[in-house]
């Protein structure tokens, strides 16, 4: 593929990094949180992870075989989609539901638009929202963990219902002893994975940091709790914000490529998440914020093209 497109005259820099290496790094970065989820919730969570990844890879293979395209399952991107989708599901979900989601993510959201690099929406998140609308009850049935941990609703739902802030233990939120989806709960494991990606230069910390900061400022201003750091930390650690910011908002295909555009994108993400969480119907808003902002990424790219060197003065 790369040799075929080798048509340049200038000494363009050629990197040895390939798509499959990047995607493999993303999978490696998600291993800690996956393991934590499986250990915390047991057999069904493991089954969900394995089957969702398998269905994602198989449906990409089947589609490409059927349409007589080049088989691209070797680039790991289908596995990443499947894994992110599995980590976005509640642990007690019937396993066939995320499998349907995986097929939808790959076939409808990714392959019908032309495959990797041409999909305008993050496939895993698109499929999560597809499942969320279709199986609202099953997708938000949270499992209670441990005797000393918070029970019933997720921390965000607990706070949205006007629960007592003093009962929220930030350490539980950070370590993951809270109800939530398989992969979003342990912020420690997620940050370990994110640090790995940043060190390997797979992702830049720019989008996630601005995104999280915007959410923090937004909830501080409009949360109705005054200047309460505890509340803001609960908003940041309580739901899928860390997972979404580091692993889903940074998706190469569906995030802007211009430096300025990435800042605009991250700020819009933060504002949307804050709006959905504080003023929307449900307690969590990260996935809807990301897929809705994905739609305007082409416009952001177009409006933030950097000026060519030496042409700064031209209007």
């Amino acid at each position, binding site marked *: 593929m790369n040799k075929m497109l080798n048509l340049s005259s200038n000494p363009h820099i050629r990197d040895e990094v390939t798509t499959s290496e990047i995607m493999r790094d993303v999978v490696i970065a998600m291993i800690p949180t996956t393991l934590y989820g499986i250990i915390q919730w047991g057999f069904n969570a493991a089954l969900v992870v394995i089957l969702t990844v398998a269905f994602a890879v198989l449906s990409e293979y089947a589609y490409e075989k059927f349409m007589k395209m080049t088989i691209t399952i070797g680039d790991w991107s289908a596995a990443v989609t499947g894994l992110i989708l599995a980590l976005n599901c509640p642990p007690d979900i019937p396993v066939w539901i995320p499998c349907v989601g995986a097929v939808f993510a790959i076939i409808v959201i990714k392959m019908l638009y032309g495959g990797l690099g041409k999909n305008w929406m993050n496939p895993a998140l698109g499929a999560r929202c597809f499942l969320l*609308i*279709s*199986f609202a009850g099953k997708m938000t049935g949270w499992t209670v963990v441990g005797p000393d941990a918070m029970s019933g609703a997720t921390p965000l739902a607990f706070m949205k219902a006007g629960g007592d802030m003093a009962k929220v233990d930030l350490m539980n939120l950070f370590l993951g002893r809270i109800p939530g989806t398989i992969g979003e709960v342990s912020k420690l494991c997620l940050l370990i994975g994110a640090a790995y990606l940043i060190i390997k230069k797979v992702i830049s910390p720019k989008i996630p940091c601005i995104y999280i900061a915007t959410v923090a400022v937004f909830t501080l201003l409009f949360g109705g709790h005054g200047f309460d750091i505890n509340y803001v930390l609960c908003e940041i650690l309580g739901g899928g914000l860390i997972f979404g910011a580091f692993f889903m908002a940074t998706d190469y295909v569906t995030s802007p490529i211009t430096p300025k555009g990435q800042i605009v994108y991250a700020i819009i993400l933060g504002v949307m998440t804050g709006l959905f969480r504080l003023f929307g119907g449900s307690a969590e808003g990260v996935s809807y914020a990301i897929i809705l902002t994905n739609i305007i990424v082409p416009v952001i790219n177009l409006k933030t093209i950097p000026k060519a060197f030496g042409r700064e003065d031209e209007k």
Partner: protein
Amino acid sequence: MNNKYLERIYNGIIKENPTFILMLGMCPTLATTTSAFNAIGMGLSTTAVLMFSNMVISGLRNIIPNRVRLPGEIVVIASLVTIVQLLMQAYTPAVYESLGIYIPLIVVNCIILGRAEAYALFNTPVLSFCDGLGMGIGFTLALTVLGSVRELIGKGAIFGFQLIPEEFSIGIFALAPGAFIVLAFLAAIQNKLKLPSATNGGEEVPEFVTSGDLLGAFNKIEEAPASEVKKEA
């Protein structure tokens, strides 16, 4: 039966199918196809209005001044819709209840105004009636297929008969996003099958059309390209 009249009906069902080829009347198409039953109700009531509005407008085409033809057409269509609405309320209250606001909204269905503008204003009443009938059948068939698929995936049933247990149905297909997804898939299948239509040139005729069945019979009488509006008046 003259060939011209059959050709109009075939044109409405296959060649210029209002839903899959012309992409007209998307609002009722997407909104009322939550179940096959609703879809058929919507399709048939639109067909009734379409046939008679085409016929009446065609009959009045030399009387209505060109400048006020749109208000004139709308008056005819709105009167017919009111008749259909009152008849449905009297004889099929169940369908009337489930379609609700979408029955009066047939007035602004762009298939009806579109056919009046594009066909009935230039052709004889009988031909226009057949055009309305063809378009109506095409619309009804398309809506029924769309409604059946959505009901089957979204609720696990067709015409209310439960085929798949309710818990295995994928609810989004009974909602608005599912309507767009299913419509896109059906239009794609239609394009893939390359039925001779206005959008794909009608050049490639698949095997089954020439194998002596109904479609084949229709195909032989097809004369002019669909894009040409015949001006006989």
